[in-house]
């Protein structure tokens, strides 16, 4: 590197201590990388970051950068202090969609590293909060070259801006006995149906799909996604009574009383005198607690499917919202089942596109128009699983009661007949 090294007294402090230091990583790029483009960029970036630490302010501004054919997928960053730190004055991030569950072979990671070194800063995060691989730091020209190269071997950009965003799934059926769903298939069926909406931002605001294989919701789907798909089951939990006995032998009866039976939110699990467990499956809400404690003895049932919740999001603008149950249970086995899932996704996105205000998330739209109007808009019937409790206020006009009650009885009769 020909350039003078920017001093970084504050950042240097972050090289101390046992946790791996990102600053040491940046410095390796600055001090050891043979290519001038990269080592000067790292030096410049460190200089700007030190400046932020000293003044306690950020110095990046957005802009408009995309690759040919797309309208999004890049987070453009232009420095406001580019005169002082010119080699990193353009420092854009490419958002790249990972496979569901974030699996990689080391060979593929190396290939991505090679491409990124050719066109970018050499700095990368697995993954950002939306779930993308974040290739951090390249010029406008670099974004196109890098994308062209990795797109040829199977990688595509994710969403940025008001569009369908990159989806996320938990580790899932690939390694978890609690998984009740094929997270891979769900994620790819959903998000790959809407690639046009991913690449060309034209929705009122962002729209996220997230998939968790069981109600532990390791993917934070209920609180972070507009369309949460959560694996569950509707038959009886599987109990291996021999393993129950082994568990009690190892841990003691008090442990199982304190940590399993008394923690059940619906009091539906009972320890019997003969050291077996009985579960009132009809009253079990599939919370997962007892299965988490007794991983060998208890497993989900065989009649598996998913629950779908709509409208979760973070703070902006009306405050945090959890998703609401829209589909209490849905089988996902046949191609037709998956078609139904994708159809529901289309209905929800279409309704959102037509009815949400600018910069309004799905959950906020539902809050504004009421759940019933949303359900009618997407063609889903009401269900008591959608609520925590019925209405408390008597201020409501109900002159359609008889017709609505009749619809309920008709649906119940249809269900009984099928």
């Amino acid at each position, binding site marked *: 590197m020909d350039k003078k090294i920017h001093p970084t007294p*504050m950042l240097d402090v*972050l090289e101390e*201590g046992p946790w*791996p230091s990102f*600053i040491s990583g940046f410095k390796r*790029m600055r001090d*050891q990388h043979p290519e001038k483009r990269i080592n000067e960029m790292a030096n410049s970036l460190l200089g700007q*970051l030190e400046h932020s*630490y000293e003044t*306690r*302010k950020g*110095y990046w*501004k957005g802009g408009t950068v995309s690759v*040919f*054919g797309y309208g999004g997928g890049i987070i453009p960053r232009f420095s406001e202090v580019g005169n002082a730190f010119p080699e990193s004055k353009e420092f854009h991030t490419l958002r790249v969609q*990972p*496979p*569901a*569950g*974030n*699996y990689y*072979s*080391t060979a593929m*990671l*190396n290939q991505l*590293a090679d491409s990124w070194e050719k066109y970018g800063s050499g*700095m*990368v*995060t697995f993954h950002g909060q939306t779930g993308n691989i974040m290739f951090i730091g390249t010029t406008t020209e670099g974004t196109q070259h890098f994308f*062209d190269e990795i797109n040829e071997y*199977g990688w595509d*950009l994710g969403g940025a801006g008001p569009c369908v965003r990159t989806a996320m799934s938990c580790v899932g*059926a*690939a*390694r978890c*006995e609690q*998984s009740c769903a*094929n997270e*891979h298939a769900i994620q*790819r069926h959903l*998000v790959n149906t809407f*690639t046009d909406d*991913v690449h060309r931002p034209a929705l009122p605001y962002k729209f996220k799909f997230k998939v968790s294989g069981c109600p*532990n919701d390791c993917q*934070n789907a209920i*609180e*972070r996604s507009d369309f949460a798909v959560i694996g569950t089951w509707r038959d009886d939990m599987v109990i291996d009574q021999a393993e129950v006995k082994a568990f009690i032998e190892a841990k003691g009866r008090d442990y199982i009383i304190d*940590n399993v039976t008394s923690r059940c939110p619906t009091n539906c699990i009972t320890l019997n005198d003969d050291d077996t467990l009985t579960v009132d499956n009809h009253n079990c809400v599939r*919370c997962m*607690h007892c299965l*988490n404690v007794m*991983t*060998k003895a208890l497993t989900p049932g065989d009649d598996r499917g998913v629950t779908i919740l709509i409208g979760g999001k*973070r*703070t*902006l*603008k009306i*405050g945090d919202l*959890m998703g609401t149950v829209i589909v209490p249970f849905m089988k996902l086995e046949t191609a037709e089942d998956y078609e139904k899932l994708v159809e529901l996704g289309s209905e929800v996105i279409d309704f959102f596109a037509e009815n949400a205000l600018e*910069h309004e998330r799905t959950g906020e739209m539902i809050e504004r128009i009421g759940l019933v109007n949303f359900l009618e808009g997407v063609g889903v019937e009401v269900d008591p699983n959608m609520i925590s409790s019925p209405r408390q206020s008597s201020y409501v006009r109900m002159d359609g009661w008889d017709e609505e009650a009749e619809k309920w009885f008709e649906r119940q009769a249809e269900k009984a007949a099928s």
Partner: protein
Amino acid sequence: MALEDMRPPIESGCPDGFQYMHPGMRKNYGQWKFHEHPRPGVLRHVAHSGDEIWTVKAGTQRILDVYSLRKLTEIGDKFGDGYVRFTIRSNIEYMVSDEAKVQPLIDALGEAGFIVGGTANSVAMISHTQGWLHCDIPGTDASGVVKAMMDELIDEFTNCNMPNRVHLTTSCCQINCGGQGDIAINVQHTKPPKINHDLVANVCERPTVVARCPVAAIRPAMVNGKPSLEVDEKKCICCGACFPPCPPMMINDAEHSKLAIWVGGNHSNARGKPTFQKLVAAGIPNNPPRWPEATAIVKRILKEYKAGAKDWERINDWIERIGWPRFFEVTGLPFTKYHIDNWRGSRNSLNASTHIRF
């Protein structure tokens, strides 16, 4: 480059992950029987077929330079089976089918400076955002806060002996991209935006900015003969939502952008329904490079949680059992008027009963 020379994209979307998956996981997909946690940082999954997958989890600096990334892949090739994944909290996981590979993997990761742990009842890696390194609207850094805190919490990451898992998150503005956490460390602005009226007309789409305000405190105005915006400072909640669509409404302030700490966010349905985090501490200085004041409060809360919670209680479960007055008592944190919610639905957070612990 001429338009006809531009390469049209292949819109392949989310790739098929099976091609990158460990063969043992491909083979036993959906056929797992149980898992165990033999030691911190290690998981053993057993399939109905009898096959096993051993996982070694390690914390990293999250923003990886290619040297660190290649070190991680080299370890995977030399000591693992060449297959990895990343968790939602940016830990790397190595999957191997042979138990004999576990200890050499742990040793190699340790030697290279990565931290094995983060499983089960640990303080997990802090899930974080971009901060000063890359965000256009950050009130603080993210990677630096996380590095400084993980240096202090490393024993809780490697030992896994908390009552239940603890998820930490940070967010560098009030949009809170970091998400819900058992403990969340978030920027909290305390003063209304300072407006550069010379720039507003050229930079900002004024109706969009007006619409973005959660409390309708912004209105169009002529200032010094130029079309601009003004803020009703009595109404303003200092959230910074106007700053992204209108950068001349500068919300970030070296002194008045503080940190706040929230607890009890829990995404799981286990035991109770998922919960949102609640405010417990604010006014914490945004103090780079190591943010010692914020770390001290996090450690104080963790100490009381570890001492007071029963097995399997997450932070929200623990506080629900002991009550909020006791939480403030044991942690020594001040309870103020700012803890009482006044946002929509706030009545639900008030105590309409005689349930009081003495």
